[in-house]
């Protein structure tokens, strides 16, 4: 499933870029994120819990940056196992920043994700619907966090 979001942050692309690259500041913005840790320059680990109605899932995610062009574009891949190891989530993500004339930054995110395993059967429909909400919330949190600190 593909989720796309476009939003504007009242800050420069560089500010947004620096924020996005800082796991300590990003973590609180990701809904359900319990922890982000840095493995090396291009790899991160995150623990994310998602609850949708009767379903609760905890993912241990590996995020790898495939390609980056500061401060314009990050292409990354997320792959991770659900806490009980019965399901696997993979997502290919693109984040693109464009400088607006008024000094703000246009942010475009897209994420193409799939869930396999047990959640991929009964729960996939619910989880996918939730994915859109998670991105929406993430966008909102990031905008607010940057705007509050800048």
């Amino acid at each position, binding site marked *: 499933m593909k989720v796309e979001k476009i939003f504007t942050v009242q800050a420069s692309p560089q500010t947004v870029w620096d924020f996005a690259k800082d796991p300590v500041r990003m973590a609180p913005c990701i809904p359900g994120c319990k922890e982000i840790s840095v493995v090396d320059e291009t790899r991160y680990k995150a623990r994310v819990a998602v609850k949708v109605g009767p379903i609760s899932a905890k993912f241990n995610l590996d995020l790898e940056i495939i390609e980056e062009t500061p401060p314009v574009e990050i292409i990354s891949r997320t792959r991770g196992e659900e806490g*009980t*190891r*019965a*399901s*696997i989530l993979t997502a290919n993500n693109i984040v693109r920043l464009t400088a607006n004339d008024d000094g703000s930054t246009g942010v475009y995110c897209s994420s193409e994700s*799939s869930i*396999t*395993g*047990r959640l*991929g*059967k*009964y729960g*996939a429909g619910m989880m996918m619907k939730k994915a859109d909400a998670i991105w929406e919330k993430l966008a909102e949190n990031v905008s607010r966090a940057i705007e509050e600190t800048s």
Partner: protein
Amino acid sequence: MPDPFVIDPGLARLSARKFVQGRGRYLDDITLTGMLHVCFVRSPYAHAKIAGIDTSAAREVGGVSHVITGRDLAPVCRPWTAQLTNLGEMKTAPQSALPVETVKWQGEPVAAVVASSRAVAEDAAELVEVDYEELPAVVDPEAALKPDAPLVHPDLGTNVAWSINIDTGEVDAALAGSDVVIEKTFSVDRQTGVTLEPRGAIADYDPAKCYLTIHLTSQVPHIQRYIYARQLGLNEANVRIICPDIGGGFGLKLHVYSDEIATAAISMLIRRPVKFTADRLESFVSDIHARGHRVSARIGVNNDGKIQALEVNDLAGAGPFLIHPRTSVIEPLLVAICTPLAYDLKHYRAGASLVYQNKVSTGQYRGVGMPVASLVAEGLVDAAARATGLDKAEIRKRNLFRDDAYPVTGISGEYLECLSQQASLDKLLKMMDYGRLQEERDAGRDKGIYKGIGLATVVEGTSPSPALYAAGGAPISSRDACTLRLEAGGNISCATGLTDQGQGGEAVVTQVIADVIGIPSNEINIVMGDTATTPFGGGTWASRSTAIAGEACLLAATEMREKILEVAAAIHEQPADILTIRAGEIFNLETNEKVSSLAEIGKTVHFNTHTLPAEFEPELIVTRHYSQREQLMVYANCALGVSLEVDVNTGLVTLHKIWAVDDCGRIINEKLVVEQMRGSIVQGIGSSLYEECIYDETGQLLNGNMFEYLLPMAGEMPDIECDHIETPTKATQLGAKGCGEAGIIAVCGAIMNGINDALEPFGVEVSSQPFTPEKILRALGKIV
């Protein structure tokens, strides 16, 4: 043989009494002392390399005894390869109980946890860490054929497992000369059998005796024993397969399943009894799937309705392995052979291909290819009727073989010995009150009520000969057997190779034996499903129980009767040929006086041999085998009609009523025949309206659970009225043909035709099964 040969038709199924009391004994009801439970770790990927398996955390869980991988099982269980050499070249690859290097479908078992309970085994299974490297998956059959497609088996160099071509007559010329040529494509989605009881195995290896006992949910114990012994390196005599009561088979429980044979291998490895019962989520990704066809077809017809030529091309999916030992090619083979089977035509061409995919393997499920063949044929015939303006019953009458034409050889080479297609259709139309239904349909259209009538006339292949499988080298027995023993009390013990998953085979053989010998049916006990106590037989598949095992029972009972009379003759010094047996008692036919009884014979033979003549040592035990070798299959026929209504606003189809007239030869027990028909019709309704295995592009089964995979429920099912014509086969004395599959074969095409009949005022059609509301609304242009 008594004359006349009357078999008590009203006999209730004695064995069903335990079922209504909840006293059936199914696999999961059995607990052995010291038994542990197996839970399999299954691949979440459709195709991936196994880079490593870490079982350490799982082993730490309290209650876990072993965690087993493919490497552990490899020394115990040899890989197997499904192959039939008589059906052209098959490219086929070996399959292991647990894979070592790659997984090839989502749901393939990768490791096994053995623990004190299923719950604990599941706890630990979640901790088994398999390091997968995902590989590109082959999902769609068309995509599998592309030159750059990833290969399911790189060693084979192709995804094409098998193909066949049939070309008889002058198809191109006949099409060119036809008044009308109609071209259509049909698609039939994958479905699965969903036996209400999931599959399973309890294996108990005794290392002291090198003896392996397996309780198995199988329709074919003797065949399974041969294969299990071969793969596990044991003598066949040291393997005992016991099939307890089985909660539905439908072909699904014929095959060798990797999780089941792994369970047997695990018991040998750890020297403990172990139980594996698939849960419902596992069933959907490990039971065989069936169907999954894309057929393009052409029919040439003249204005008088006579079919001139037929051409079909079928593309079907096999999954990653040809299912053992029957292979997955029989579905497309039967599409190629059976599409024209009901009709008298001179020019026919068929092509069928089977391709590998990273989805669950396909295999024999009720009807095997024939429901697809019939859907195509009946869809084309209805299209021809529309094109020529002929009534849909009339066009069939003009093209079905005449009832006095038999024996004939069908266009695809099948020997059809004696069918009653015309008489069955006539009887059906009367039952349905066809004319009145047409009037009602026409009258409704003006009021916005869209009713439809669907017909199908089909020929069903039953009771195959060894030429189908065994001739190709597969260890599949087409024989069956009956051993009869007269006990000291005068009652009869019967052991047969047949198994009963609910069809009522036990009742049928009881009736045959009772009738032939002349003994009340409650004095006969039947043992089946245990290789240690029954004679070698093929088991239950391809609608063969009554025809094959029934005949073996008839032969054995005939001989047993003769032997009993011989003893009676010796005791009472009367000629055997003037004696007869009625209700367990022996009479002199001339004086009509009672001479003896089975009880007396039993007592004399087993205890009082001193009263017999000195040289006479009677053996009151008889075994007789029978295999049908006259014809590839014994063909039966069926005419089926559907009355339905399409709600053109919601796309919902309401089935009002279904009628069927079948000819399964001699009927032994009408109630059993009728409910076999109805049961298979309802399974066909599932195929038609509800069931589909929905996969995404990565090979994930999206609806593999009972919430989302829809099955027919009582509320939407119509009443189904059945009648018969009896044309006994000459292949056997009993004269019975199979009857368990005609319904599912006929009803799919009839429902499609009924829907298209209802949609006729709109000039639109559907041809993609299942015929869902959404497809119907799209055809109507209500949604785009």
